[in-house]
């Protein structure tokens, strides 16, 4: 097995110090405007699909220039104050090298008297605004998500360091037995060694379990990653860094429904509208869609469920508004076919032909014809 040593990828992101500087620059500008008796404003990039453009060459959704301006008026004074307090809190976190989960940040705001948040979604939104304002990842602001990053098993050694001693830790992902390596929240410092041929990203934990149990990674010489639904930023970043670093191909295996196509696969590959300012770092342009495709339904004679109204809407939305789908006629055809068939199919439907049909027949057949993978 060819082993390649990890090179440290230089993260094209501001360092901790410049984050503080950025916060201070913005605050200074507000401060000066106030003293000049002008109403200050903050300009946030609009975070939605309408403000991204698909760059096929770069391979991700790039943010367009659209910005929303939050001018300090009577109506916005509360949110404005909250945004500033969130910035102050972030500065404090970065300076003291501490972190706060989104929920912890929400609880910290309970000390802010009138500007406290009533519900966590409010504080999350303000946090995402601040993140977009400085075009940084929230981890750089000291905020971390609650959810874990995803599971990894297979032909991979992750190189991490002991928090206290700095000693190098080599984590062999083949040696977790029926368990798996858990992707940490921050993946920037990790190094990789692998002889694997590709990465297989899997939507459901159930399918991941089956492939781990039967050591599919050994048979196919690959790395298995469990996405657990829509992949977290850490998971996306992990796959991206690993694939870049080790020049690996990435195949995605999800349920055959619009959610699997657009929310999971598309987000993993090119990013999302909501984190448009970060897609550059959180996309995996080398990803290809293995299945389950609408074509598989007839090809493999799979049991289905009717599409729900929300699925149909999602598919139609994607056809109309998703720049990625609009760029790829293959995806348009696939989605239109799915709408026409009116059904969806789950990964585990393959079990109809026998529990290990997926390992013995489906995946090998798919892998034999990689050219047919959807873009």
């Amino acid at each position, binding site marked *: 097995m060819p082993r390649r040593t990890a090179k440290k990828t230089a993260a094209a992101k501001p360092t901790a110090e410049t984050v503080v500087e950025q916060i201070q620059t913005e605050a*200074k500008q507000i*401060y000066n405007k106030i*003293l000049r008796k002008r*109403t200050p404003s903050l300009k946030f990039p609009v975070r939605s699909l309408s403000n991204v453009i698909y760059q096929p060459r770069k391979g991700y959704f790039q943010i367009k220039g659209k910005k929303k301006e939050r001018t*300090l008026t*009577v109506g916005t*004074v509360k949110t*404005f104050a909250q945004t500033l*307090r969130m*910035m102050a809190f972030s500065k404090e976190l970065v300076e003291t090298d501490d972190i706060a989960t989104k929920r912890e940040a929400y609880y910290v705001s309970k000390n802010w008297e009138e500007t406290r948040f009533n519900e966590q979604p409010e504080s999350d939104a303000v946090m995402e605004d601040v993140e977009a304002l400085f075009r940084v990842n929230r981890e750089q602001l000291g905020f971390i998500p609650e959810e874990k990053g995803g599971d990894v098993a297979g032909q991979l050694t992750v190189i991490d360091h002991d928090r206290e001693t700095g000693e190098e830790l080599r984590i062999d992902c083949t040696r977790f037995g029926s368990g798996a390596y858990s992707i940490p929240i921050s993946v920037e410092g990790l190094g990789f060694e692998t002889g694997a041929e590709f990465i297989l990203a899997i939507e459901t934990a159930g399918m991941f379990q089956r492939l781990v149990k039967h050591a599919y990674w050994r048979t196919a010489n690959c790395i298995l990653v469990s996405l657990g639904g829509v992949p977290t930023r850490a998971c996306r970043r992990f796959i991206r860094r690993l694939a870049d670093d080790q020049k690996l191909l990435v195949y995605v295996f999800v349920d055959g429904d619009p959610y699997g196509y657009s929310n999971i696969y598309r987000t993993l590959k090119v990013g999302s509208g909501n984190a448009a300012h970060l897609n550059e770092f959180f996309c995996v342009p080398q990803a290809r869609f293995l299945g389950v495709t609408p074509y598989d339904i007839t090809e493999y004679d799979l049991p289905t469920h009717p599409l729900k109204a929300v699925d149909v809407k999602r598919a139609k939305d994607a056809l109309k508004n998703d720049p990625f789908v609009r760029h790829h006629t293959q995806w348009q055809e696939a989605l239109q076919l799915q709408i026409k068939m009116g059904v969806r199919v789950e990964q585990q439907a393959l079990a109809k032909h026998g529990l290990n049909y997926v390992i013995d027949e489906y995946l090998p057949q798919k892998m034999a014809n990689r050219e047919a993978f959807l873009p």
Partner: protein
Amino acid sequence: MRESAAMTSKKAKPRRRATAQSMAAKQRDISVSEFFTKNRHLLGFDSPTKALLTSIKEAVDNSLDACEEAGILPDLDVEIQEVGENRYRVIVTDNGPGIVKSQIPRIFGKLLYGSKFHRLRQSRGQQGIGISAAGMYGQLTTAKPIVIESRVSRRKPAHRYELVIDTLRNKPVIKRELEVEWEAAHGTRVEIEMEAVYKRGRHGVETYLRQTALANPHVEVRFLAPGEEEPLISARSSNDLPEEAMEIKPHPYGVEVGLLMRMLKESKARRLRSFFQAEFSRVGPTLATRIVEGAELQVQTSPRRVSTEAAERLVQSIRQTRIPSPPTDCLSPIGADRILASLEQQIDAELFVAVTRSPTVYRGNPFQVEVGLAYGGNLPVDDLITLYRFANRVPLLYQQGACAIHRSTLSTNWKSYGLQQGRGALPSGPMLLMAHVASVWVPFTSESKEAVAGYDEIIRELKLALQEVGRKLAQHIRKDRRRQDAARKRAYIEQYIPHIGIALKDILDLSGAQESKVVDTLSDTLSRSRKM
């Protein structure tokens, strides 16, 4: 009727109860005084509380009318003394011209005696019932005489009379008569003892006197309530007497057959044409001829010879003739300026508005409407508004629901002027409204003069005046709302701005002084901005 009578007669012949002769034996004059004793409610003496108020009202009306006619700025002293359980002595003293000795008994001791009934002129009293009725009420409930003291000039002594009314014959009976000391050069003092109940509140004497002062800014009233040491003083807010009201002749449009017949019989005119010219306002020779000929009568006919049937034709003819409106200089409104001054002196409010409409005519009677409004300040916010009604400057305290002023106020849409108003109710809000109807003959719904009758013309004028003050009110309320919005805005801003200060201080390591400068400057900038 006849048939049914016939049918009953078949059953049993009804026994004859009385004959025309026996009935004739019982038929005789009803003395007005006797009529009063049985119908005192018609004159406002139906309850002990109301009787007290009505008595004072009648005395005050007379005093003010007399003072104004004589060109004297009225000073009134009203005193109520408690002399026993449910027994009070009412004393009203004025600085008026006084009453000639010989007239005193008839004015106070005979009902329907006075100077005002026979002329068309704006005055408070009209029929000459009031004060003698009060005296009679006192006499009926306490058997005490009414006591009058009066002096007409420095050169003459003051006289004191103690009178009772012979209720059967409607005649004064003088119990005592003597000369007394009187400090001032002229004036009159009336004292009546009566069974009564003294109450404060909406229908109380104090309310009545306050309202009197409001509508009569040239009057000074001192009121000594029972058990009080010091009198309550309503000082005058104007030193000008109201314009003297001119006396006018009736206008033909206000005349009905009965009245016309009486005028025809009583007139000194020898011919119908001169009768119309002499007895009516706005009728010259041409119009007089047109009226008479329109009734197919001769202009030379003697007025005394006109039959009832011909009189009816004359009334018809009058209706069909275009006659100019009566002169309106006979009216003496309070005046918008004086209403304003009066309201400002008596009411603690923010906004004062007053309107005096031009005079106009109902049924040949000139009348004029005025409305004053006070809003905000100390007036109660959650209650219905206070409505003060006046007729010829006299406050109307009872029968609000029957009054044209009340009805006009209800049917005005106050919601569009920024007040709340329930269906069929007065609006609510911190407002006091006063409306005044002045006329040579105010049409009251009853002899107790408590409510103005709802002639279309009067209601229309009232509504126009109310709408006029309403529009001013709406302007004010809008401005007020804007001010309140600004205050709310400021309070809202001031909740959050300190946090912008805190955040900037944390981020930029500001000093305390810099932080408060940020907060102050920003508060100022934001509260100036119009954006919400």
